[in-house]
């Protein structure tokens, strides 16, 4: 069975790289991007991750917009939002509700909780792929 591909998107480089490393240790194939533009470029270049760990608050394009872009491109990619803010996910307007993340985890996240969520997200993606959704 191939490794689960995880993309960590966070403008905090130290956080993103360390988290990626920890996930790699746990058997995931993790890539870290430090801005949303790089992450989207990577996805558009057909490097489709199974699960994206996406920081909610980032410069230029925030997590919610990125989520929208990702979901529009491939709705089977599961996105787990990471937030350092207590406000949860600001659901504004019906469109945003359409592109909801798999889950939202508060920083600093427990690694076991995070791996559990990634695996659950992967299972969901797998189920979607089996149904024939996405590309």
């Amino acid at each position, binding site marked *: 069975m191939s490794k689960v591909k995880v993309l960590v998107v966070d403008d905090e480089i130290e956080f993103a790289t360390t988290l990626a490393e920890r996930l790699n*240790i746990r058997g995931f194939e993790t890539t870290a991007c430090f801005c949303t533009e790089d992450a989207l470029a990577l996805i558009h270049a057909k490097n489709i991750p199974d699960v994206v760990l996406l920081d909610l608050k980032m410069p230029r394009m925030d997590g919610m917009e990125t989520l929208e872009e990702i979901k529009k491109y491939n709705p089977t990619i599961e996105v787990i939002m990471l937030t350092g803010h*207590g406000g949860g996910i600001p659901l504004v307007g019906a469109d945003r509700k359409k592109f909801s993340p798999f889950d939202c985890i508060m920083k600093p996240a427990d690694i076991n909780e995070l791996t559990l969520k990634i695996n659950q997200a992967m299972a969901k993606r797998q189920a979607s792929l089996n149904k024939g959704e996405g590309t």
Partner: protein
Amino acid sequence: MINKPGWIKRIFSGVEDYHRTMTSPERYRRFRRTLTLVMIATFLIPLILTTMLSYYTYRSQMLNNLRWNAESATKTIEAFLSELQTVLAYTVNEHTYKELIDQDNLNKVYHRLKSHYPGVVDLGIIDHKGIQRAYAGPYELLGKDYSDRECFTGATASKIFIGIVEMGYRKVPHFAIAISFFNQDAGQNWVFRSSIDATTLDKYIDKIGAGPTSDIFLVSRKVKPLLQSTSQQYGPPLSPYPFELPHNSLGITISEERGVWDYVVLKAVSYIEGTPWALVLLKHGYLYGKDWSFFKARLFFIVMISTVLALLVILQITKLFVGRIREADEKRESMMAEIEHTSKLASIGRLAAGIAHEINNPLAIISAKTGLIMDLLEFSEDFKYKKKIGSEINGTSNAVERCKVITHRLLGFARRMDVSLESIDINSLMREVLSFLDQEALYRGIHVDLDLGDSLPIIESDRGQLQQIFLNLVNNAIDAIGKDGKVIIKTRQRDQSSLQIDVMDNGKGISQDIISHIFEPFFTTKDSGEKKGTGLGLFITYGIIKKLGGHISVRSTVGVGTTFTVILPIKTNLSRRVHDVESKSTGS
């Protein structure tokens, strides 16, 4: 504020000071005192002026009456004497000396006069030597020598003479009217003399009738005056009158005199023209009489009753007025304090949430890094300090975990909460809350008493948040007791629109210097033992209660216990509040 004149500001400086300083009992006492004095002065000054005016009006009226009576009496006496003089002069003019010296003729004249003027005692004709040549009357006075008598010398000098009342030869009080004539036949002056009974004067004076409280009489114009008519106070004619007469002989002189019983009487003296007399009118009861007593008593009672009533009203009004001002000030101050407190908490809350957010990112890095080290340690072979490093990193992770708890709770306070309204029976909610804490209470030997009000209305609120509030409060109560004690939870309907829930404990209590800070964030007294406080429990509780439209207050006595009182609205415009919260929190 209305611009008040300077003097009003100075009088009420106590109130003006209020705007600069806090309220204090002394300030209100001073204000009340000033207000009372100002109101009393405002009332009493016109009252005293009116009283004085009434007094002087009354006195002036008395004086005018007296003057009028004296004038009228004087005119009556003058008219009587003038008439008598005219009649006597006419009688003499109608007869010659020879006719009058004839005893029969004189007797006829005497009887005619006597029939018209009963007061005429006798008539006499005195020759130029002062010897009475003819006499008509009841006494034997023919040949009497009048040469050294005033009636003779006076009449010779000034034609008509009226004498003072005397006993003379007749031994009864009388006065003489003497008219001198020139006898052309003999070339000498002679005098026609008539004696008038002094009681005639009494009769005339009685007719004047100056009133029952008056004494009116004539006195002689001497240094030591004698009564010329009967006085009620000083006795019959020729009794001494113990006062000197005024020097001013013109008009009426009014003065006060101390009477026989040491009473002050009002006195009017008027000199009667062409006579040796002065009319004295004494008004008794001027200061001590019935009229005056009545007037004085009436004035006194009016003033006293008005003053007492005014004092009562003024005291009540000032008490009420100052009380209301004080109440309003205190209410305003407490509202200001509450607004200040709420706003302080809100801004601290927002600030804390902002800081928590910013701290979360570096915290996440520390957490990730320590996690990675742990991972690396786990997958690496044994080396000298592996265990030690592992334990240190574990310590770091625990510290990060504690920070995480704090930041998450702070963020929980500030974040937008989806308030879901539902119908809640507060009593069953309290039972639910207690079910979470039963074991803890049992373990610590704390008895939890539920005093739940009957048939309380169902309230509309957020169940989860209410649970959080009461879990926190009961938990605090248990912590305050420590071991072996009692917690009482009391619910009741406060009024038509709210419920009141009291959480009471008999724990150690909170001192006054601490109690004002307990709703502030990061304020905790649980700094020892295994259960360290974050200092956010009551801060968050306060925020939630405010958001739900309620109110929380605390009363505590050190060593006795603490009572937290939560007031919750039965129905609240929560949708609006939620909307407000949302609109503030979105966009971050």
